[in-house]
């Protein structure tokens, strides 16, 4: 017993080190005065300064945040509807089709999602003139489409766990079906919606491949910018940016954990 515990412990230490090594190295090098990764040129915050004066990076960040927020919101709306249709309409005839359309994006390589979305937009433009050109809107649509699938999975599992008698009780107490949804179902599954939104937001914010296919001339997103910078030489501003992202994410997660922990620890407020 003892022996394997040591083994498990060693593997865990190795695993976590593996997961965090690159992140620490990025944070470390963001404070490196030298431009070269190989040389430690002393502590400096110059790259943070450079980052905040780099219009291109700031603009790309803004665009990415905007697209991610819009795509996540749309995906939550559509994905929730799909999840409701799945779990609550037992005799839906289009069930297999809907199931296919919400599960296929999960197993579809990004290059295919990107290619197919682009060919659709090109084709649509040819036939009906919409969308005229490609840009943030086409990126948002493409992101919404694949994020939907993730939202559907999350919301669906929450809906399936939910005690259906809650909805029946609301009906029984005189609420019409749509009111039941807004007064009971939505508040109860809200954590799942929030989780779905966050996941969709992150997926969209992180996406390089799909955005590369469907973006237009002046709609370079942050991942596209990072990719081109990484491809054509090291830029330490990226380290600074990455450090900021890590900082924001970590503090958000720690805050969320604390809030949830407090709520769970103290049920008799």
């Amino acid at each position, binding site marked *: 017993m003892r022996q394997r515990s040591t083994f498990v412990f060693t593997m865990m230490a190795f695993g976590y080190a593996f997961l965090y090594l690159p992140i620490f190295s990025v944070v470390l090098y963001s404070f490196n005065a030298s431009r070269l990764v190989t040389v430690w040129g002393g502590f400096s915050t110059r790259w943070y300064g450079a980052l905040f004066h780099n219009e291109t990076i700031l603009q790309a960040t803004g665009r990415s945040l905007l697209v991610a927020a819009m795509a996540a919101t749309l995906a939550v709306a559509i994905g929730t509807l799909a999840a409701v249709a799945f779990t609550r309409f037992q005799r839906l005839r289009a069930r297999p089709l809907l199931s296919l359309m919400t599960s296929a994006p999960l197993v579809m390589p990004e290059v295919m999602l990107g290619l197919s979305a682009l060919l659709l937009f090109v084709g649509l433009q040819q036939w009906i003139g919409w969308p005229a050109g490609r840009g943030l809107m086409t990126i948002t649509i493409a992101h919404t489409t694949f994020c939907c699938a993730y939202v559907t999975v999350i919301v669906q599992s929450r809906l399936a766990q939910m*005690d259906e008698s809650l909805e029946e009780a*609301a009906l*029984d107490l005189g609420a019409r079906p749509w009111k039941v949804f807004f*007064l009971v179902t939505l*508040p109860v599954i809200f954590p799942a919606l929030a989780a779905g939104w966050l996941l969709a937001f992150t997926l969209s914010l992180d996406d390089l491949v799909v955005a590369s296919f469907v973006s237009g001339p002046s709609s370079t997103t942050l991942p596209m910018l990072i990719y081109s910078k990484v491809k054509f030489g090291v830029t330490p501003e990226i380290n600074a940016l990455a450090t900021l992202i890590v900082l924001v994410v970590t503090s958000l997660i720690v805050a969320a954990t604390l809030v949830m922990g407090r709520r769970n620890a103290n049920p008799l407020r």
Partner: protein
Amino acid sequence: MAQPGRRQAPIEPWQQPGAQPFLRICNVTKTFGQTYAVDDVSAEVYQGEFFSLLGGSGCGKSTLLRILAGLETPDRGRIVLGGEDITDLPPYERPVNMMFQSYALFPHLNVAQNVAFGLHQERMARGEIADRVAAMLDLVQLKDYGRRKPDQLSGGQRQRVALARALAKQPKLLLLDEPLGALDRKLREQTQFELVGIQERIGITFITVTHDQEEAMTMSSRVAVMDAGRIVQVATPAQLYEFPANRFVAGFIGAVNLFDGRVSQQQGEDLVFHCEALGGDFLMYHGDPLPIGTPVTVAVRPEKVSVHDTRPTDRRNAVHGKVVEIAYLGDVSIYHVATDHGQVVRIQITHEARYSRPHYSWDDELWLSWDPDDGVVLTA
């Protein structure tokens, strides 16, 4: 078994010739795929009754309750409540409320908001809602709990919130799905009487579903025993126990000895039946004459069987046997006695004095007897 003697002057509208039923269930059938959940069920419930649907799991009692609530639509049949046909009304338009087995308290709302939920749907004025909620919480003795969330309540408190919420709209009919099923045994007994007290105070007709015969017997004015989607008997608890209509009811309510045999002789209101397993002829009271040779089952409750050391001379029905099983239960002891021809008879002896030792031990020989009207002759 708790005795149903709570009513001073029993109100028995089903006995009165002119009484109009408040709820009529007419030939209701509901199938799920190939299986009949509710099979051509008809029943009548009177104003102010505490009516129970009793049966094992899958007997269709919950489906019938959900049909009354409007949560399931029957394939055939009508539901008439207070003269109005409500079969096609959706649940949110029925003057019927339900207390769910899981209580179904909205986890995101506090106790007061839960109770007020139905009132808000009626667009009742705010002040009025507050008054009603306060009155309801008072009724279920949870006056100071209005701001608690459901997950901060004990099981018993949740049960009472669910009751208050279902009663808040003052429904014509209250449906209770296993109202005490989630409570532990001690709390359940206490709550049974509370529930009856509340029902008598507000006078709303209650229909409850339960699989617990003791619960049904304690609380109900009448009980409908269900089996395989059908109602097999509707009667008061006492009638159900003493005059079961068939083998199923006799076996379902309490313990019973069932002796299979055939009618061998008819003597006025009595009949003689022959039972192979008991090895003889026995005299039983039965109102309707039955043709000779009719297969019948005689049901005798364990506590109605008397025990003797020697053959009793003054009893008509006596049989010799040997003790094969003893169970001491505190208030009573249960004995299983194997008769000479193989039938095992269950008997019950009450311990009336603290120092009374059981008279009989394993393999002791004894005589059992019962009077002609101690048992029921069943033909189904």
